[in-house]
């Protein structure tokens, strides 16, 4: 009995190791390119810095068939619901790379219409600083996410709002996770 369960454990452990290894080495990206970082992302997929060497060969542009969301570029008020729908549509396990300063933290643009960092609303696995980051930085982030995938770590989806009774159609400046509004001593406007 102990021997069969030990053999079963050995098989499933090796199996999950093999599956995670395969997942890591064949990350199919969902390029969510909005702005300038999208151009550097395109450059990474082109001949000189070929990201398909790392298994990211297939750019399907369909969230249903990809496992790595690359948010490259600034995300505005109108685009955020779109990003969240795309994130919801991706099957698990899924990872997210936030490329560039705008997606990570709002970047150069601290304005009324730009999300100051997508990680407030979507779980992010790797951040790429830069404006725009070089393709080498893109490959570095891709390798970080690959390492995570090979260890079997992924972010799963769990829809939790701060306040379950909140109606998101009401604009509430006091109940936002936006860092600028969290600190009351900062001057407004």
């Amino acid at each position, binding site marked *: 009995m102990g021997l069969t369960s030990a053999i079963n454990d050995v098989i499933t452990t090796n199996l999950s190791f093999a599956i995670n290894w395969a997942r890591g080495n064949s990350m199919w990206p969902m390029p969510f390119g*909005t702005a300038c970082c999208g*151009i550097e992302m395109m450059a990474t997929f082109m001949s000189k810095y070929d990201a398909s060497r790392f298994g990211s060969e297939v750019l399907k542009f369909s969230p249903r068939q990809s496992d790595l969301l690359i948010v490259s570029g600034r995300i505005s008020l*109108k685009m955020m619901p779109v990003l969240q729908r795309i994130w919801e549509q991706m099957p698990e396990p899924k990872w997210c790379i936030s490329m560039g300063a705008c997606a990570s933290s709002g970047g150069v643009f601290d304005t009324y219409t730009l999300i100051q960092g997508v990680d407030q609303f979507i779980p992010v696995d790797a951040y790429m600083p830069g404006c725009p980051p070089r393709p080498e930085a893109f490959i570095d982030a891709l390798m970080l996410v690959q390492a995570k995938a090979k260890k079997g770590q992924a972010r799963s989806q769990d829809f939790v709002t701060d306040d379950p009774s909140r109606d998101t159609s009401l604009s509430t400046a006091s109940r936002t996770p936006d860092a600028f509004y969290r600190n009351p001593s900062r001057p407004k406007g």
Partner: protein
Amino acid sequence: MYSYEQEVVEQADNIVHMNVGPSHPAMHGTLRVKMQVKGERVIKCDQEIGFLHTGFEKLGENRSYNQFVTLSDRLNYFSPLNNNIGFTVAVEEMLGIEPPRRCQVIRTILCELSRLADHSLCVGALAMDLGAFSSILWTFVEREKLYDVFEAVTGTRLTTSYTRVGGIAFDVPEGFEQRVTAILDSMDRTLGVLRDSFYKNRIFIDRTQGIGVITPEDVLAYGITGPMARASNVAYDMRKFRPYLIYRELDFQVPTYAEGDCMARFKVRIDEMAESIKLVRQGLKLLEPGPIQYQDQKRTLPDKVSTYRDMESLIHHFKIIMPGEEHGLHPAVGEYYGSTEAPNGELGFFLVSDGSGNPYRVRIRPPSFINYPVFPKLLEGAMLADLVAILASFNVIAGELDR
């Protein structure tokens, strides 16, 4: 121009409501197109934009003139140097400053190299969207070589922030002429490859000839500028209209075609690339040693090296760079509209100055935003597959469209 929701749609049994975008491979950027399609024909079409609205103009009111150069990179991110130079030329015309010769020659060379980068990406993407994937790989190889030169000159590949009011940030490094000449030679070869691959290709001709025809009357009414206007027989190019930088001395043509279809826009861009190569070769011959900054202590930045050695330069540098009431450029109170020829069309900046270091109002006249509204008119009655060809020939760049 009508609203999709306001039209009463007949309940025909084979009308499909399709939504393309904002996240879609055929959408060049964050655009959304809502269509009613019957079979393969598009009956009605409505566009939605604003998915990349960043607030450049509002931000410009809170940043100084030199800081806005950094922001201008992010407008048309295919060719950031054109935006930098366009903005700086508009500010300098408002101030009445004429930068020195070497600065103007370097700016012209980089402006044309940046135009080469933009057109090569647009042309490659147009062919890729129609199925010829290799063309974007070829043109991106050329773009990477241009990136190497931009990085050597400005420090970064894409968002260059190279110009300052009154001059440029750094001088070009040694070996610049050889590197640029090598790129021009390889770019000539790539243009030859593109012409051979596409001008007589039956599939490409069928998909682009006669598709998306813009009439010259539409060009004038909508305000379309750039290669799209020149493909419809309206020969309007700011470099010939009112030459800025050193364009008055350079010899170049403005390629114009009369058909106004996607093929004409493709050909105009390839011909413009050939003209840009000629311009850069002429510009390199005119490059002579000299200063790169206009010397006006109150309004233009001093030479950086002298700020480390000379107290006066340091003080003037400080007074121009620091934010605050008494620091900054301080142009005279007034308004000015200055424009240059970006790869997409006329990039204009309407600046209102209240005499302080920050502009009071920066209006960016974005060529993509003014070119794009004619799209539904072209798509109605066309096939669904033409959407890709027409949109790719527009070269709509969302950063500029939404600002």
